């Protein structure tokens, strides 16, 4: 008591003292900035800036091409010249010619483009650096029409909600299954989620590499993964409070799995929507069927922990699970189809990976606690492997 009392009169002073490093830092930064880069001159020369634009979106409208560009670098960047298929074209701009850091503008080019043929657009800076974007096939970019909204919504519904709901129909069979089989199916869930997580992670890394340098980076992927992993952990802990034990129970686990799969399906919808909007994807019946078969296994993944649950889940609860897991595909398709950004796609794929891997950990804990023989039983190991194989094989259909 004495020591605390002795220290307390000075505590106000020490709080202000805590500001000292910040103030000093500001002073040092100020001196350094105003000195005008003389430090750099001591050791060499800064290389010139890249002067490349980030071409974020190319839209094809009747008699017109719209190019959305961003300045991804520190230095200002001026749009000086625009080419289509290596020919200089007249253009108009909404916004300034001179773009500050991370500023965007839309270039509108009156152009009689040829449907279904490859086309390239180029934007040249005042320093003569040309950034080009190849488009595999020029296809009219759908506007946000009622028909378009319905179309993308239907695609999301077909590849997201329907297969998950179908997979959930395995629930009654699973309930009657032997305990060892049930453990195997739980492990299968973990296996297929691991597969989805790794796939999403790979996708995220691949996409971040294509981003302009200042915003790209493995750290961006980590951010997405951490964000969703930690959110899922938090969510899982909150759900577990309803259960009798501190650990996550079967019912909550089913919901967690559904959420994890939901985040993944959001990314999947986003990818389908974006690719289609950019003319990179032939959205045939076969592809949709492939995605559906692929995603039926996701329904099974939710059904396995649901079968473990002691309380019977009503139809309404099951429909909710299907919606949580499959519905995001609809949202993703809308976002991708109408307003996608590459940066957002990276974050979502990373988030999908984080969510999937978190659920794998939860399922693993559950199986370790409940299954006879724990994680090392042949049923569990076999189930896990079967989950991965099932995903790989059904994934071939969607390739």
């Amino acid at each position, binding site marked *: 008591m004495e020591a605390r009392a002795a220290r307390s009169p000075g505590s106000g002073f020490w709080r202000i003292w805590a500001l000292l490093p910040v103030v000093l830092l500001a002073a040092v930064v100020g001196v350094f900035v105003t000195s005008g880069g003389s430090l750099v001159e001591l050791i060499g020369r800064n290389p010139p800036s890249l002067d490349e634009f980030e071409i974020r979106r190319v839209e094809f409208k009747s008699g017109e091409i719209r190019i959305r560009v961003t300045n991804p670098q520190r230095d200002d960047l001026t749009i*000086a010249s625009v080419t289509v298929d290596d*020919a200089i074209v007249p253009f108009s701009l909404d916004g300034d010619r001179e773009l500050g850091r991370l500023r965007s503008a839309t270039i509108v080019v009156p152009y009689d483009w040829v449907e279904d043929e490859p086309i390239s657009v180029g934007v040249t800076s*005042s320093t*003569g650096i*040309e950034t080009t974007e190849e488009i595999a096939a020029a296809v009219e970019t759908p506007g946000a029409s009622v028909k378009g909204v319905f179309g993308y919504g239907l695609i999301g519904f077909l590849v997201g909600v329907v297969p998950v709901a179908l997979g959930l129909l395995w629930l009654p069979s699973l309930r009657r299954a032997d305990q060892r089989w049930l453990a195997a199916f739980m492990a299968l869930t973990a296996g297929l989620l691991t597969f989805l997580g790794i796939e999403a992670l790979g996708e995220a890394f691949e996409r971040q590499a294509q981003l302009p340098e200042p915003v790209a980076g493995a750290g961006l992927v980590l951010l997405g993964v951490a964000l969703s992993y930690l959110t899922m952990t938090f969510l899982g802990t909150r759900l577990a409070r309803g259960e009798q034990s501190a650990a996550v129970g079967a019912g909550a686990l089913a919901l967690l799995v559904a959420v994890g799969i939901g985040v993944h399906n959001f990314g999947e919808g986003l990818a389908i929507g974006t690719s289609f909007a950019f003319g990179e994807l032939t959205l045939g019946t076969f592809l949709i069927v492939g995605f559906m078969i692929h995603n039926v296994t996701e329904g099974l993944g939710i059904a396995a922990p649901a079968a473990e649950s002691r309380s019977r889940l009503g139809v309404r609860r099951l429909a909710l699970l299907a919606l949580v897991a499959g519905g995001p595909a609809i949202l993703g398709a809308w976002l991708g189809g109408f307003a996608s950004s590459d940066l957002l796609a990276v974050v979502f794929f990373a988030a999908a990976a984080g969510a999937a891997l978190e659920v794998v950990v939860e399922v693993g804990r559950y199986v370790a606690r409940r299954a006879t023989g724990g994680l090392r039983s042949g049923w569990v190991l076999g189930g896990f492997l079967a989950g991965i194989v099932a995903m790989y094989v059904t994934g071939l259909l969607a390739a």
Partner: protein
Amino acid sequence: MPKSRLSRRKLLAGAAPLVAAPALSKLVLDGKASAAEHAGHEGHMLAGAAMVGEGTPAPGGPHDLDDLLYPSAPQPPRPGRVREYELVAHDREVEVAPGVFFPAWTYNGTVPGPVIRATEDDLLRVHLVNAGSHPHTIHFHGIHPANMDGVFEVVDVGTTFTYEFPARPYGMHLYHCHSTPLKKHIHKGLYGAFIVDPAKPRKPAQELVMVLNGFDTDGDGENNFYTVNGRSFYYARYPIRVRRSQTVRIYLANLTEFDLLNSFHLHGDFFRYYPTGSGDVFEYTDTVMLCQGQRGIIEIDFANAGRFMFHAHQSEFTELGWMGFFEVVD
């Protein structure tokens, strides 16, 4: 051609446009108007001069490439005459398309460099002052002694060299830097037209010089812009006015780097093409093809008044800037 003496101070004055060049974007950028005014004033003051000491044409206006388009008048032969030129090699940002600036290496501040003209057997004396950042030379096409060839006598930064030889043979020739790496020194802009007039003067005509070139502004080994006399679509924006009553004579040279060929095609008429301009043999055609370094003389007797297009018959070059118009008036 007037001769000019070059002093250190004049050289510095000549380098002023180099500093002002980035501000010359008045055409497209409003924010820099004050700097552009300064440069424009200077450009106006110095218009009509080809020597660096007297300044360089400012880009942007309809007449700023006139020095490169209209050669000085041919001189009748006179024994013992000396034709003296001063070429200062220096680095300068040039506007190769509206709002697009290229860090060029120039002779006297422009790409292509000034037109050098002499009559056959005039004694040509060309002073090269290297005020640039790399060793340069001038290699003339034509007949001259081996030690005047611009290959072995490399002119280091800050030094001067004088080329001296009788101008011959008559014809349309060219000059360019022959320092290594050759490709770099040429595509950066060190080249120009070199006209040697025959002792027996050619028929009077409206004379024009067209140097075909390209600019690789992003360094990927492919040209981003193609031009006549250095500015893409320049003569499309400012058509060349000619009279139908008199022959139009074009001194044509191809100095395009990276691409194997360039060409000249005229709409609505035919012309006589004299390869290298060194003889009387001509082809009657509307399209000629030139590899790098190839050149010749075109003579057009326009049959009709009106606006006629001329361009490279490589569609890609046309659409990247190599296109213009003749405004033919009666």
